[in-house]
């Protein structure tokens, strides 16, 4: 009986074992963000606008926190993130100034120096009194796609706080972020 049990366990082991398939992760631009409904909306919007208007297929990854996100950036698995100056300066252990512009300038300068990353045009829809939120990209990928800031600026110019709130409500009521953002971009004639 004991032998039969062992045999059954072994057979089960053999049956259940599947070799892991290799995933292809070689996207020319790979987007990343700390996971939240708002981040998913922004990332999906950026991915859609890039692919639809340029033909460049982008990858997307979500992370459970800033440390894993930035680790992926260091490993060159992620090239473009969405970041706000409060989180950024917090990570760099720098004090937050009262004015948004000062914080943005400091974040820009320190990210260039310490992370070799460039802050692009912030989204006015996501601004607060002392913080700005913007796409931040690695210098290497920016050099490869120098027209990317111009493309993302179009999105920043159109997206309003009200639009974002509506999109968030749609997503929280169960609509997929990709569907909601695609419809929004089409309605705004951005794709």
């Amino acid at each position, binding site marked *: 009986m004991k*032998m*039969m049990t*062992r*045999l*059954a366990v*072994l*057979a089960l*082991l*053999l*049956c259940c*074992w*599947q*070799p892991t*398939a290799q995933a292809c992760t*070689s996207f*020319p631009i790979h987007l990343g963000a700390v996971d939240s409904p708002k981040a998913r909306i922004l990332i999906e919007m950026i991915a859609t606008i*890039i692919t639809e*208007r*340029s*033909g*460049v297929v982008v990858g997307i990854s979500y992370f459970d926190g800033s440390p894993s996100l930035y680790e992926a950036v260091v490993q060159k698995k992620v090239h473009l993130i969405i970041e706000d100056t409060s989180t950024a300066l917090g990570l760099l252990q720098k004090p937050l100034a009262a004015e948004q512009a000062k914080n943005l300038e400091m974040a820009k300068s320190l990210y260039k120096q310490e992370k070799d990353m460039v802050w692009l045009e912030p989204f006015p829809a996501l601004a607060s009194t002392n913080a700005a939120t913007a796409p931040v990209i690695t210098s290497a990928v920016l050099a490869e*796609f*120098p*027209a*990317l800031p*111009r*493309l993302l600026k179009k999105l920043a110019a159109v997206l309003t706080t009200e639009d974002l709130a509506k999109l968030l409500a749609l997503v929280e009521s169960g609509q997929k972020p990709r569907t909601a953002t695609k419809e929004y971009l089409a309605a705004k004639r951005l794709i």
Partner: protein
Amino acid sequence: MRYCLSTLLQVFLLSHPFPPPMRRISLSVVLLALLSCCSSLWATTPAVIERDTVWSGTVKISEKVTVKAGVTLTIQPGTRVEIASQRGIWSNGAIVALGKPSRPIVFTRADDADLWHQIMLENTTGRFSHCIFEYSKNGVHVHASEVTITDSLFRYNESGAKLCGEGREGGEKEKQGAEERGQGWVAITASRFEKNGFGLMPWHARGVVQDSVITGNKVGVLVRDQEFKDLAIRHNNIVQNSTYNLRMGDLNTGGGVDARQNWWGSTEPQATIYDERNEPGIGLVSFEPFAKEPFALATGQQ
């Protein structure tokens, strides 16, 4: 892991001398388990074509198929290649798929599966005629290869064909610098691109697209990036694509495209083209002179 399991099995069998009736049952169970294990391996290990191969009848692709350099994969007229979701053929070897008008070669999805990925040709050659490519992400994806496509139909794909003059991103050719990269040449003639997201997507491509019909796509031709001057899109009917008949990609920092002598569906082609005139810096489409009426074209598999 595979080695560990095999060793574990051997140790188990050696250390358990079963009585005769028990042995038969036990061996059957172990054999069944091994067979099951082997079938899992078969299903998930990429198939590699290492010698000249001929396909005919119905070919089902459930995993990535790789064709090695120096090898030729010949696909006979009338062959139906059914490809599982996200799978496809990655070829460094030659592909020869010459169908006949009455017996086209069909590359399609398996059952109602999601889109299959692509037929990628890299640093090699390919000849396709009287082929149908449908329900894929990229249809035919060419990187630095000499490829001819005639009398073929591309429909219901995210992109009908992606044409790139360079080696794949991150690939060996890519690392060698522009002058050393493979260049390739693509000739597409008498073919039809219909009801795709993007009909054609050239990217640093060299070659010619002519005598073809590009219609009913979201974008007829999307030029992702065009560094080289020797891509000619001419003598085609490029009409009724839902956003633009020809669009320069927003990230294009290269040159323009020669798209003279096409029929654009009207006598005001500019309205159906998105280029430098709409957005400075993305490259100019040379569309003049243009045809004043449609060409009578016999494209494949209409």
